[in-house]
């Protein structure tokens, strides 16, 4: 019997939930006042709901179909899995997106798909959905398309005319991992697609001579996702891969997705799932690399096995391994050094730099800036405050260990 739209929605959203990204931010600002149509984007995205897994629901995140001719071991949709299958027509995806949007459930669509017939056929259908939304229905909300591996460059380019963001998944941190677990995928081709997309984005960013206007092409850039814990890659390996992706292809984001138990899992996979905390620590380390001036090597250097510590965050971990660099004087240290103090975020550091132009800062000033004085005070000196030398404190690490109940997260 044919499955109802509701049944298929259940299957095709269930299949999409392993994707970590749901972001709808970072695109151009636009609205429907002039067109009299539907949709707007206003810079920062909006989370319209939160699921009990704590994740933001911003987009209608679905698969066009979960039939797939590939057999990637970590994926619930691989051809050898016995999961229930379903498929939407392009018109159904368009309808769902518009009707969900009208009710203010979502900011837009995040569409990916299993591969049916071949990569180009699948990609064509996805492009058609985005194109219809934009051209037939004048939809100005957010669209994220996950490109299909091995799809032709001209299709990806066409997708970029309609989508705010495109993603190409790197899948696993090492080429060997991809070859082992995703036998039909080719790491070299994945990177080639990323490179081509970057070139196109760069080109579109150059104002043309004639109109002096920038072409609209993937305004929210490209992102990727890496599955953590399916292969044996260490955190150091993972972070180095990310660093290469950020610098080589100027990705907006690398998403880390802790390999999740899936129904009917392949036997090629490890039986133990990685702790969610590992994923969290990787995001923190990624953040340190992108916004705090840390090198990947510094972040993982103190850990001989290349794994981030689970019980404390990577910034604190680095500080404890580099005690000789502290205390940092908040009244004279430069920005780079202030950013290394555990407990001081980017915003706070900027406020400190501003505030200290007018007066010498003490701990009470930090408290007013909403800094947790208890946390930072071992690492800084301030007006009227000098910490006991860090090197003398054998118990420093214990001071920061989280209370045991938080470890239940693991």
């Amino acid at each position, binding site marked *: 019997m044919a499955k109802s739209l509701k049944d298929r929605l259940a299957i095709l959203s269930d299949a999409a939930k392993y994707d970590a990204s749901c972001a709808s931010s970072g695109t151009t600002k636009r609205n429907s006042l002039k067109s009299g149509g539907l949709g707007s984007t206003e810079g920062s995205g909006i989370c*319209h709901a939160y699921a009990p897994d704590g994740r933001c629901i911003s987009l209608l995140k679905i698969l066009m179909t979960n039939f797939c001719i590939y057999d990637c071991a970590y994926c619930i949709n691989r051809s050898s899995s016995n999961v229930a299958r379903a498929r939407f027509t392009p018109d159904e995806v368009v309808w769902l997106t518009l009707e969900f949007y009208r009710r203010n459930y979502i900011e837009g669509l995040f569409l990916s798909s299993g591969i049916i017939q071949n990569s180009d056929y699948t990609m064509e259908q996805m492009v058609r959905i985005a194109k219809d939304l934009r051209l037939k229905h004048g939809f100005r909300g957010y669209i994220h398309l996950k490109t299909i591996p091995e799809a032709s460059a001209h299709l990806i380019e066409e997708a970029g005319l309609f989508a705010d963001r495109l993603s190409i998944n790197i899948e696993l941190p090492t080429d060997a991992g991809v070859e082992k677990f995703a036998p039909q995928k080719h790491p070299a081709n994945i990177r080639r697609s990323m490179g081509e997309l970057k070139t196109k984005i760069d080109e579109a960013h150059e104002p043309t001579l004639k109109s002096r206007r920038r072409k609209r092409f993937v305004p929210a850039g490209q992102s990727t996702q890496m599955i953590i814990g399916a292969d044996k890659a260490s955190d150091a390996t993972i972070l180095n891969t990310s660093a290469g992706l950020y610098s080589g292809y100027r990705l907006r984001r690398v998403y880390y997705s802790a390999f999740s138990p899936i129904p009917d899992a392949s036997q090629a996979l490890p039986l133990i799932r990685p702790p969610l905390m590992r994923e969290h620590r990787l995001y923190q380390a990624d953040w340190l690399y992108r916004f705090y001036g840390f090198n990947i090597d510094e972040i993982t250097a103190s850990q001989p096995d290349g794994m981030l510590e689970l019980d404390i965050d990577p910034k604190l971990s680095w500080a404890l391994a580099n005690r000789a660099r502290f205390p940092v004087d908040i009244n004279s240290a430069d920005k780079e050094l202030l950013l290394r103090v555990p407990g001081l975020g980017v915003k706070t550091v900027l406020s400190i730099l501003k505030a200290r132009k007018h007066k010498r800062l003490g701990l009470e000033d930090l408290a007013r800036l909403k800094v947790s004085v208890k946390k930072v005070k071992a690492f800084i000196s301030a007006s009227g405050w000098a910490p006991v030398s860090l090197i003398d404190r054998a118990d420093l690490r214990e001071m920061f260990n989280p209370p045991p109940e938080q470890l239940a997260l693991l």
Partner: protein
Amino acid sequence: MIHRVRLSGAGHFDDWRQAARSLILQGAEPRDIEWGCDYEYTDDLFAAPSAPPRAVTGTLSVPRAFLTLAERLLCHNNPARFSLAYRLLWRLQRERNLLAQVTDADMCQSHQLVKSVDRDCHKMKAFVRFKEMDGEGARRRFVAWFEPDHYIIRRTAPFFQRRFTDMDWIIATPKGSAAWDGQSLHFNDQPQTRPDIVDETDDLWRTYFANIFNPARLKVKMMQSEMPKKYWKNLPEADLIPQLIRDADKRVQEMNNQTLNQTPPRFHQRLNKARST
């Protein structure tokens, strides 16, 4: 001399601004003004009706930043908002850099109130849910019920206008309503009652919500800090939450146990055959 100012509705910014301007130009000190509005009317305070402040002509300039601050401040439901805003205005006449003094008590309080208004606005943009009404006209018609903490409808309505331009809509709240008909926004300051409308699409949304959730990653606290319970009663998906949480463990167990049935589907076998030839 005591000035009594009673603003209409919840006290619109423009009305407050006009009154405040006259009062400043008359040299009325903050402590000599009793502010109120229809919504927060208390008998004794306004037992004797007072004449509206005399319109005084003259010019008064303030930093633009004050206007954006005061506009948000006046959305708050704290009855002291009018006098706080006036006190800032009064002090600004002498202390020109007042707005930069982030540790000043009046400024601290203002920032706190404004922050709460901003959050309320953000949550309104996120959690309003439109339901479709029947109708024959060319434009589709929707209605939403929302319960904001503060008087923010006028502030957020333009967002909905920019986004839902091609449909007619009404957002009704206990603090008034906003409506869009394709031509202009209309506001009503009267408290509204909750409309009783069923929209079948809510059912599809609930299906989506239940399935996009990954039971292997339960983080209930995180969800609740971003989507506090006070909003749940007007979210069509929220009554699924307790059950989703209760069943999470069971579903993970089921997933783990399913691994043992291992004959791949027939099309996989066909694909394999095709690949090997």
